[in-house]
Structures are given as C-alpha cells and as structure tokens.
C-alpha cells in the first residue's frame, strides 16, 4: 500500500513534526517541544486557547439531486429531515446488522445537497457503500475527498482567530452549523462550526493544491500568534476526543459493535423512515443489550491502553479497553471500555490488566470532559 500524504506534508516536516502512518496516511502525531508543542502542550492549547490541525485525510462525499434527502435518510441513522440548510448533525452509516460502517457528520449545504464528512481509514469503503446503497434514488454521489485540504481550528479562541481571516460573521454561526465566506482571500469557502475536540471550533475546506494549502496554514498560524496558537497533531486530537468521549472508528465503534452498545442512541432516530440497520437494531433492543461502552478512571497507578483487558475485582476477564490514555487537561488516567451491562453502572469497581497485574479503576459518568457553557 502506498502511504498517502496531505498537501501540508512538507509544511509539517519543516516544522519538525513527528510523522506517523495512520490509516494509510502519513500524518503529524505531534510537533516538537522546541516550538512549544508536544501532545500535552497541544492539548492544553486547545482547551484554553486555540490549536490547528491538518485533517485533510478525512473524506468527503457529496449527495445532490431531487432525492438527496431520501438517500441520506436511507443510509444514515440520524434524522436528516430535521436539518435546515446550513445545519449539520452527527450520524452514522450502518450495516444491515445495526453495526457501524462509519460515523459521519452530515451537512445540509443546499435544498437538495448534502455533504458527508467521513473517516480517513474508511474513505473507499464508505464511498462504495454509499454509492451501492443509494442507486435507487435520483441523486448523484460524488467523492470529493481529494478536492479539499481540511483544517480544523479548535479551542475557545478559535472564533477570534478565524474571524480575523474571514468576512463571514462567525458569531452568527451556531455550533454544528456551516456558512460560506471569504477566507484568506479565497472566495466561497465552506466553514463549519464543528470539530473532534469537545471544544468550540471550526473546520474549513480549502482547495487541496499545495501552494494554497501552505499559504492558508501559515496565515492561520500568523494570525493566531496573539492567541498563542499551536499546530496540533493526531496525538492531541486523540486525547482531546477521548476526554470528550467522541467515538473513534475501529475503537469505540466498528462493524462488530452496534448503536446501543456504543450508547449512541440519541443520534439514532428509530421513529423516522426506514434506514439500513433499523430492523436489526429493533431486534437487538428487544433482545436486550449485553455489553455497554463505559468511562473508566484509574484509581490505582497505571495507564489503561487500547486493547487491555478489563477484569472484575475478583480477577475474571469481563471486557476490554477501546481507548485509554492519560488525560492531559483532567490530569487523570482515563479509558473507554466495553463491559457487560451488570458492570456498567457508575461507581462499579473493576480492574484493568496492565502488564499482567490488575490495577483498580471505577466506572465514571461520561463524557469525562464537557466544555464550560458560555454565559
């Protein structure tokens, strides 16, 4: 497999980023300590100021045509009929079994036009799946994944930073809404108030040529200097989303995990029209859910990591960690894990097996982190 690179690859390298392979893409995991970065500093910048991420590896699928809404309703679990033009929603594409093809953000760009933003590792699979499952609708399906450089500007100061570079009135854009405007001199740029950090922020979609991408990236960094902006890599992106309990494909959600187990009920509208996966989900709900995703906090020394076993206090294997890490803002060791329902109530004591030994942990309410409400 050839490793793919975003248009900003050379920029990341020049900045001294540590590059890693992620789902077939060469991406920055963190930038050097010498420029004030490293996962902890990048994470803290997003919680307290602003950080920017190259997320061009994310994919984009456009559905447009007279039956675009019907097509989106058929392939996704949330109710897209509720979306006004310019609004977005978290949703998921499901297999007939009620398990996950991928999670997505559905944007309604125009009356009959929707944009699905999908994960990097599932781009090709998602596109074929969407195409195959929408053939019966009068609706064109286009893979726009390579057309955009996607930059996420995240943190409480993100709005102040981006407002310096655009004529769009960002104060009028609510969370999970999109607008279009001039950004860094580029006309008609899509700006979404969305992100994957559990913080306020924006994602912009600019042309994917290297010159434009580089110029915009550098202009954002320059404009953000007064707010202490730092570039952020996948390392901080992961710890930020974990504190906010946002699912990662292949970890909290996958083709063997269903919607109820992942506790994504509020994004799954069973009462809307038929959609792929609905019948299986109805059956699985009637049969009773056997395991649930829970938040764990370590109560003893040790860091739970992806794939570690979860044990009962008497040492029986009962589940596994889907994502685990030190949480830089909360300053705790946290994890998400699948455990049988009887172990899911908040306050349940469990253990995580770390290098052969059980370290104490307790089920805690999720999300671990919720951003302060603006007054």
């Amino acid at each position, binding site marked *: 497999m050839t490793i793919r690179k975003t248009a900003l690859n050379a920029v990341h390298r020049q900045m001294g980023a*540590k590059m890693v392979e992620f789902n077939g893409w060469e991406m920055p*995991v*963190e930038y050097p*300590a010498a420029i004030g970065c*490293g*996962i*902890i500093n990048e994470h803290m910048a997003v919680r307290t100021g602003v950080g920017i991420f190259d997320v061009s590896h994310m994919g984009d699928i456009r559905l447009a045509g007279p039956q675009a809404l019907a097509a989106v309703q058929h392939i996704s679990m949330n109710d897209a009929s509720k979306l006004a033009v310019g609004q977005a929603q978290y949703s998921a594409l499901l297999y007939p079994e009620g398990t996950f093809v991928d999670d997505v953000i559905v944007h309604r760009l125009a009356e009959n036009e929707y944009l699905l933003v999908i994960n990097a590792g599932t781009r090709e699979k998602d596109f074929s799946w969407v195409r195959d499952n929408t053939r019966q609708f009068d609706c064109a399906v286009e893979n726009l994944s390579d057309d955009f450089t996607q930059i996420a500007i995240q943190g409480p100061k993100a709005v102040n930073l981006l407002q310096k570079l655009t004529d769009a009135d960002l104060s009028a854009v609510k969370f999970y809404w999109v607008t279009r405007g001039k950004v860094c001199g580029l006309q008609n740029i899509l700006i979404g108030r969305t992100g994957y950090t559990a913080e306020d922020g924006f994602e912009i979609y600019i042309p994917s040529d290297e010159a434009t991408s580089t110029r915009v990236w550098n202009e954002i960094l320059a404009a953000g200097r007064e707010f202490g902006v730092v570039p952020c890599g996948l*390392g901080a992106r*992961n*710890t930020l989303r974990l504190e906010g309990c946002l699912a990662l494909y292949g970890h909290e959600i996958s083709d063997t995990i269903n919607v109820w187990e992942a506790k994504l009920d509020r994004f799954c509208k069973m009462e809307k029209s038929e959609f792929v996966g609905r019948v299986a989900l109805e059956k699985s709900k009637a049969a009773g859910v056997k395991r649930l995703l829970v938040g764990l906090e370590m109560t003893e020394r*040790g*860091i739970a*990591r992806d794939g570690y076993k979860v044990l009962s206090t008497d040492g029986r294997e009962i589940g596994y960690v889907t994502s685990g*890490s*030190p949480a*830089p803002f909360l300053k705790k060791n946290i994890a998400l894990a699948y455990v049988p329902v009887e172990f899911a109530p908040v306050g349940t004591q469990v253990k995580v097996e770390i*290098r052969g030994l059980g370290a104490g942990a307790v089920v805690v309410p999720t999300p671990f982190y919720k951003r302060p409400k603006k007054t």
Partner: protein
Amino acid sequence: MAYPTDRKYTKEHEWIQVNGNSASVGITDYAQQSLGDIVFVETPKVGAEITAGKTFGTVESVKAVSDLFAPASGTVTEVNGELATAPEKVNSDPHGAWMIRITLNNPGEIDGLLSAADYEKFVAEEAGH
C-alpha cells in the same frame, strides 16, 4: 543535544554511567524525543536483580508504552523517587534523570556497549530511516 562521553549507550537507547562497582541507568535524549511527553516511569524495587539485555521496567509517554532494557546485570540499590511525581524530568534532562542505580555483577559487560560517538552515529542512521 550532545551525548556525554562519561558513559556508555545501548541500541535500545539506555545510558549507563559507571562509578567503580556501581552504575546509574537512564534513557537517552533520542529516546525521550521519540517517546514524547513522559508521564510514567516504572522501575524495579531496591534489591531486585536485573539482567543485561532483559527488560527491567517501563516508561510511558502520553502516546506510547516502551520497555526499558538493562545495559548490564546487577542488583538495584536505589530508585529515583523523584520520577514517580515528576516523570517529565526525563524529557527536560534525560542524561541527568537517572532511573535506577545498580551494583554491577560483571563490570566487564560495559565494554561491549556503545561509546557516545558510536551511539550518535547509530541514532543518526536510525533517524534516517
């Protein structure tokens, strides 16, 4: 960062500084840079035996878990307790932040390890990959 010439290095990126029959062990600047923000150092207790080339502990950064390999065989005489509460010292001062002190079973083992110059060459090659 220059690698101090008063000690020897392993290809697993530990350093060992010998003082008579005893020695201090830590990880190199290259190791701390590759790991990133270090949040956890797990070492054996005083009195434990460690064996050259075998793991004797673990160091964890936010992102990664990495084994520590013993540069030489010996008995642990001291553990750097400061690292339990301030593991980030390994990032800020890798060649000062020793992890354990040991008495050497066989001081001759040290001769087989890399000099500072050889280690520097080794990491330059490794970083080039």
